[in-house]
């Protein structure tokens, strides 16, 4: 913890970035759990090729690991220098997607790169943290950010958000917003602005709900909050997911023995509801282990942020942790709503 005596947490060695072995171990365990769980989720799938997904996932993890290893030799300060370039490039890609992207199930998200496809919006999640870290790093000396001071960063966020929404991919747009929002909060927003935004939200949300949203959108919110209101239709997935998680009980049903997922009662079990598969098969105990690993990983991330000796490093690390939390806790939305 920071104390009044100065800056004891700041590293003497400016510029060194030691590769964190703890984080590596945790990541390795999480990856193993993830791949095994994916294997279980797709194991008895009737869909052609789905049961082989875990192998592809393993390959991607390999690529990711190699990429990380490469980054090891790049000082993060170098990243700082390329932040806006990366941002511009990513915006270009997002725009490109809208023009030449592959359309899957009614939305354009994918960009073909030779034999593989990428989703530029996925990169944008990281790029936005990267860009904002750079912006706030450069924007020194403010105690609070009021609306005027936040104008530019908000613009930086809105451009990709609108591009992503145009695909449309609301989920990713929300994550970009959430990551950016938490970073802005972290750099300290003026209490007046906070209050104004809060009040505006309180007033606007009911009004928007009543007058702006269409019927089917309202219905979606209702079933999100209360799946039982439409158990056969929109609420079906949430209910089946709750049954999956709940029926795991204390110890779980065992690896590849989750009936909800193995017998297809749980829809989208290798994507949206992958956590439910895990919770069903490994129970409360399995969940605690997973949570422990996450906490370890995140506090590790926060420690890096905390220990950073410049604002860019700290904010970027924080942004990554925020992104990580959004993705992993956000997915099991059922955890927060009944």
């Amino acid at each position, binding site marked *: 913890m*920071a104390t009044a005596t100065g800056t004891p947490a700041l590293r003497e060695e400016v510029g060194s970035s030691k590769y964190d072995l703890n984080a590596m171990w945790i990541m390795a365990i999480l990856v193993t759990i993830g791949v095994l769980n994916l294997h279980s989720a797709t194991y008895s799938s009737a869909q052609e090729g789905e049961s082989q997904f875990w192998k592809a996932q393993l390959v991607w993890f390999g690529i990711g690991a190699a990429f990380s290893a490469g980054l090891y030799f790049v000082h993060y300060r170098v990243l700082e220098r390329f932040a806006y370039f990366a941002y511009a490039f990513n915006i270009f890609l997002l725009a490109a997607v809208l023009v030449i992207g592959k359309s899957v199930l009614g939305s354009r998200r994918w960009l073909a790169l030779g034999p593989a496809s990428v989703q530029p919006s996925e990169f944008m999640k990281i790029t936005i943290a990267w860009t904002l870290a750079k912006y706030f790093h450069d924007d*020194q000396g403010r105690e609070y950010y009021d609306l005027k001071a936040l104008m530019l960063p908000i613009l930086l966020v809105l451009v990709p958000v609108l591009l992503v929404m145009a695909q449309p991919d609301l989920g990713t747009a929300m994550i970009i917003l959430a990551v950016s929002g938490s970073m802005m909060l972290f750099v300290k927003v003026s209490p007046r602005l906070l209050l104004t935004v809060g009040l505006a939200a309180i007033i606007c949300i009911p009004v928007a709900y009543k007058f702006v949203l269409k019927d089917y959108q309202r219905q979606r919110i209702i079933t999100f909050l209360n799946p039982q209101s439409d158990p056969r239709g929109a609420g079906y997935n949430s209910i089946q997911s*709750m049954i999956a998680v709940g029926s795991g009980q204390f110890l779980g049903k065992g690896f590849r023995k989750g*009936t909800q997922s193995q*017998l297809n009662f749980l829809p989208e079990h290798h994507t949206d509801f992958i956590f439910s598969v895990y919770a069903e098969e490994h129970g409360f105990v399995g969940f605690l282990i997973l*949570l422990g690993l996450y906490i370890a990983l995140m506090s590790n991330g*926060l420690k890096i942020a905390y220990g950073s000796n410049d*604002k860019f490093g*700290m904010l970027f690390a924080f942004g990554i942790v925020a992104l990580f939390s959004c993705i992993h806790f956000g997915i099991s939305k059922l955890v927060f709503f009944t």
Partner: protein
Amino acid sequence: MLGQNEQLQVFQDRFRVLYLILFGVVAILVTRLWYLQVFRGEEFKQFAEENRLKKIKIEAPRGMVYDRNRQLLLDNHPTFGVAITPQYFRAARSETRQATIEKLGHIIRMTPDAINEVLTKARRQPSFQPVVIKKTLTMDEVALIEMEKLSLPGVEVTTGIQRTNVNGLIGSHMLGYISEIDGDELPKVNRNAKVPYQQGDSIGKSGLEQQWETTLRGDDGVEYVEVDAYGRKKLVPRQKGKVVADIPPKPAIPGKNLILTIDEDLEKTAADEFVKRGLTGAVVAVDPTNGEVLTMLSWPSFDSTEFSVGIRPEYWRELTNNEDKPLHDRTINDHYSPGSTFKIVSAIAGLEEGLINAQTQVMCGGSFKFGGRLFHDWKKEGHGLTDVIRSLYRSVDVFYYKLATRMDIDVLSRYAHDLGLGVRTGIHLPGEIPGIVPDSAWKKKNMGADWFPGETLSVIIGQGYLNVTPIQLANMIATVANGGTIFRPRLVHSIETQDGKVLETTKPEIIKQTHFSDETLRLVRAGIQQVLENQQGTAHASFTPGINAAGKTGTAQVIQFKSDAVYKSCMNLERKYRHHGLFVAYAPVENPKIAVSVVTEHSCHGTAAAPVALAIIKKYLQKLDPIKYSDDALKQARIDYFKKGATQSTTEE
């Protein structure tokens, strides 16, 4: 402006808040998971089990029905049908559902609209219950469905039973039929059911099938099969070949068997007689010593097997449009005026009341004047001097007209009741009607008028308001045979389990015991024995030497005639206006074993009914005593009879 380090210092303070938020999130997560997995875990486990395990109904076989000699009367034949389980069907995409219905419709030759209609009809029942789309499939259709199963989510082949009357049309009214419960009937039916019925279940709708529904119906069993979200049995590699889940099945308990008092051979004999002679009508035969019903036949009949699998519309139209009303049970659900068979009752009443005796003689000149009106005898020329015995075997109307002038209608009706007429016999079958035996109170109530003495003259010869059912007539003649005991007619001899363990045996049930004097019984029995034996007896044509039977003919008017025109013109009438012929009989006279009533519709006279009765009596006696009543013995008796007759007529001359 703050320096870089001071700024970082400010941020580092925020980590405390950050950790606090992280802690909060973790606490919520842990609480939530604890709530879902531990606190409500058992409940969700149940939901998951309900998802995974599909209850499969094991249909319990319905109890069989046998005749008194353990000949099978009602059998179960397996059939295959097809059902859709909405729970699994609705889990599929709407295009898939549409394709499924079209494909299935193509296989089973039903339009998609017709299938949708069946599904819509059943929408109120729980979605896990299969909705039967078609009850009978050919083996080819079954094979096609099984082959296409993967592209038919929610569709499954079901097995069912076809309840089969082994003897085709014979006995269908008494045995009854089963058919599927209509969705609308379900709540009503289930109000009293111990085990609730489900959509697609069959229930007894008439006859014994209805009366003994709870006995015959089994208790369906259940087995659990692991299924996926589309209702397909799941054969995941880890449990290949093991589709039945780890929950022990509940076996089906078969319905109980009924052993009837009916004799299949007598049923067949009766039906043969009706078919051979082109007759319609009814036959009831009972054992006068205990009330066991030996045969009960209403003709024409219907194929009850059709009903159990869903009757074809064209067959239904054929049955309902037929003027002879094949669905109508003439034995208990229709009544006829008893005609002269009622003279048995009148004679007993007169003798018991002391209004007539063995010496009473009435001169019959062919008509009788009463109240300014002329009452005709059926024989215009008259019968001459007539005593009670002759009044019975010649069926002399004038004898009874005379008796009627001294007989109160209320007394006559009391004797009719004592002999089982005008009241339900209490046979354990649905839909029995009581018939009508009028008295002065009845007329007051139903016609709002006093009884005219002239009306007694009609009633005493079995006409007028009188109406009785064939089963009452059988009971009446059985009571004459046994000397005054009215038994409740019994159809069920015993109830057994599927493997032959006797659960219950029924006992004779006396409804009424009347004591008639020996003299009354002697005279009446002698009179009706002469009906067959005496050469002037109205049914002498049916006399069978070697079989000592007693009987009485009767003619029931379908439309009113002047009584002198009764017989002459009958055969010239359109069939539906012709009189019904009746015959009641019992045998052997020395020790009665069988009492029969026969109604032959539009046959003009009871002499048409008598051969049917005699055929049944002969068949039954041959079974009781194969030697005494063998064809050879009867032939010999016939030869002896004619020899004797020849000598007699020689001596008379």
